[in-house]
């Protein structure tokens, strides 16, 4: 693909032809405020925040504007500033200003954009009448939908359509009543939603938020423990507990995507049912025991059943290193090749 040269606020940059002006700017580290844009999704041109002036003549939305050689873009033209400020003021007109307790505080695109375009108390008053109050949809066990925080960017709808091909949600109703809804506006848990949480991850505001979200103190890069796809993820840790899972966008297998089990199915690690000590059977009943007691019992019994009297069932859930040692133990210590695992089940 060819490269084209354009200028943004006088700065010469090179972009690949076929890119939009917004993509070219962001790729070159230049911020143009935007809300409905997401790098994984096709440009939508809905929020009108990414407006720029082209060749000092016309106003255009940069997320829909293909780069052309010699194009001169201005992002700080007075007319541009006026339009995007009004757009943002309209977006926050109904928005609850409960930022401090909001899930997305400090990670909110609306905050970032409002700050960048210079929304003021005065300016907000122009449009502000009341906060929209629509009951939260709390039917999904993993995330809540708070319509009053929704800015109608459609990123959730497009994620569910373009990336997931599930189409559980779409716009419903008209005008100021317009909301993101499931078919028949039923609670999300009664829709075809698969609870993958991909929309929650991409929501730029707090309209879609994980129910029990806690910010992790640190994250550890690992691999999902469920199916054989092997998605890369980050385990979020707080104290001695796993509190979050985030898809690894750099992993070539899943490129950041996760399914409902991978993203939300980690509570078993922290579950009170976890085995915490060895158990041995005494008088027909399993009772807690020490490692020494358990290992002695095992060593004694295993020593007497080497060869044909012994069998190992390994596990497709263990690591390679675990499995390697288990077969080495079976073959070299227990003197038999009778080791198999659950591959066929």
């Amino acid at each position, binding site marked *: 693909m060819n490269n084209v040269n354009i200028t943004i606020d006088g700065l010469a940059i090179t972009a690949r032809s076929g890119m939009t002006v917004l993509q070219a700017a962001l790729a070159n580290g230049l911020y143009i405020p935007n809300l409905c844009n997401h790098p994984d999704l096709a440009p939508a041109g809905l929020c009108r925040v990414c407006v720029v002036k082209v060749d000092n003549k016309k106003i255009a939305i940069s997320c829909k504007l293909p780069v052309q050689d010699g194009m001169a873009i201005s992002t700080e033209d007075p007319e541009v500033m006026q339009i995007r400020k009004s757009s943002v003021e309209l977006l926050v007109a109904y928005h609850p200003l409960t930022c401090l307790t909001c899930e997305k505080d400090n990670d909110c695109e609306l905050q970032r954009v409002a700050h960048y375009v210079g929304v003021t108390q005065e300016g907000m008053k122009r449009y502000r009448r009341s906060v929209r109050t629509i009951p939260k949809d709390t039917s999904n066990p993993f995330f809540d939908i708070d319509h009053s925080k929704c800015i109608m960017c459609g990123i959730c709808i497009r994620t569910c359509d373009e990336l997931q091909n599930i189409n559980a949600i779409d716009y419903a109703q008209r005008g100021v009543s317009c909301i993101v809804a499931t078919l028949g506006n039923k609670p999300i848990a009664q829709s075809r939603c698969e609870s993958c949480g991909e929309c929650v991850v991409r929501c730029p505001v707090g309209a879609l938020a994980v129910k029990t979200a806690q910010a992790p103190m640190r994250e550890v890069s690992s691999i*999902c423990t469920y199916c054989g796809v092997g998605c890369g993820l980050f385990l979020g840790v707080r104290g*001695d507990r796993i509190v979050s899972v985030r898809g690894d966008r750099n*992993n070539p297998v899943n490129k950041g995507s996760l399914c409902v089990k991978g993203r939300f199915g980690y509570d*078993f690690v922290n579950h009170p049912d*976890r*085995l915490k000590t060895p158990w041995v059977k005494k008088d027909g009943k399993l009772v807690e025991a020490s490692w020494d007691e358990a290992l002695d019992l*095992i060593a004694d019994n295993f020593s007497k059943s080497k060869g044909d009297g012994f*069998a190992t069932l390994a596990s497709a859930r*263990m690591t390679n290193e675990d499995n390697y040692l288990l077969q080495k133990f079976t073959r070299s210590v227990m003197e038999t090749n009778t080791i198999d695992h659950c591959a066929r089940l």
Partner: protein
Amino acid sequence: MTNSINEIIGAKAILAIGTNTTQAHPIIALQVKKAARNGAKLIVANPKEIDLCRHATLFLQHRPGTDVALLMGMIRVIVDQGLADTTFIKERCDNYDEFVASLSEFDLARVEQITSVPAALIKKAALMYAENSPASILYCMGITQHSHGTDNVFAISNLALVTGNIGKPSTGVNPLRGQNNVQGSCDMGALPNVYPGYQKVDDPKAMEKFETAWQKKLSPVPGLTHTAIFDKIYDGTVRSLYLVGENPVISDANSSHAVAALEKLPFLVVQDIFMTETAQMADVVLPAATFAEKDGTFTNTERRIQRVRQAIAPKGQARPDWQIVCDIAKRMKSQGFDYANPQEIMTEITSVTPSYAGITYDRLEQGGIQWPCPTKDHSGTPILHAAEKGLFATASGRAKLMPLSFRESAELPDDAYPLLLTTDRSLFHYHTGSMTRRVDGLNQLDSEEQLNINPKDAKRLGIADKEMVNISSRRGQVSAKARVSRICPPGIVSMTFHFAESPTNVLTSGALDPVAKIPETKVCAVRVGKQ
């Protein structure tokens, strides 16, 4: 998989057979759906009208257990229409003439009769697969869990070979493997007939190699497979079983047999993260660490070896599995089990496993590597059997086309048990549910076993939607809630096996594939009745 996950998107045609991809492999399903959206021809072959059908160009709803007939019928169309890749066959395949002779059994009229798929649709699918290159085949347990599972896989391989869809990007024979590290467990020799890297235990050279590496005398006799182990426990030969991270009381086909065997077993050690149904029968239960509590590697379905990292300390006195094995070995006064960490174990693995020889933990820091990776400077192998270096694993190095004939499943519906039960999986649960049933949210989203039954069958039996019903086979009875829907065609019902309260595998058949020894959990005969 012969090919890689990220190549699926580049296929012009995709045949997804015996895989309920959106439920069992949702992240691979994203690629399949995206490919279909971009214009790839998606052919879904499944006895059930699964979710993926919404995205399919063609849907072949064949009778369970008739995959050989369906696939060989498609191949016959391809050969008859002159669409076979004769150059590829000449250069890289053996046995073509014998193979073509075996196609005479599969004229479309007979195939239609066997599979219940209209001949015209089979022809359309065959042409669609053959004329849209590159074409990829995805399959899963719907292909393998049959008393003729090996034949089913041969049929898939035949289809790919005849059209030259192997060894090139976005083609291939691609099994979607179930457990996170089922590929790695096989690679590591957790199998009765092979050492790590599929080196045969009855090959004297391989045995000598491992005797030298481990400084121990080894047995040249292949061991017992999973199902045979339970038979030998039952007859008293096997007296001690060391069972790690597995729950056969729920997961084994005809699970009552597994339970009866375990009840007779003198000494059972179970190593797991929960007190599973199987652990409750043990003489000793050992607490293991979860994936989040240990270091190591998993190998995924596309043969990619990736690093698993410890995030938190093991709960209570739980220990990583590798450490427990070392503890037992040392307690038995055995040499060769002194490892400081999994990295040292990987160093030993790479010294005896040619396909892993180039792997190091340092290299894995930069991302996963697909085996074969024979040297430290080899970048891994995304595509197997590529023309320039990819010999096939046969004596001649050429692929063998396999003549096949159709065999019915071991147990078909009859007057006493008139419905065919096939097992399936839910997006929200994993295997026997020992993990996912302990995640409240997943339990809310899918809380109980459901029997999918067609409205025609439900009406005939007087069963209403959401009514509790009894399902019985020659081996046992379970109860579950009926879900009346058109997902299953008339005559076929389906259940998952995630719920210990409705242990579906009490019903399933223990009939085995003669080669792979896999049980036929995809086909058995049942009766459904009101409670």
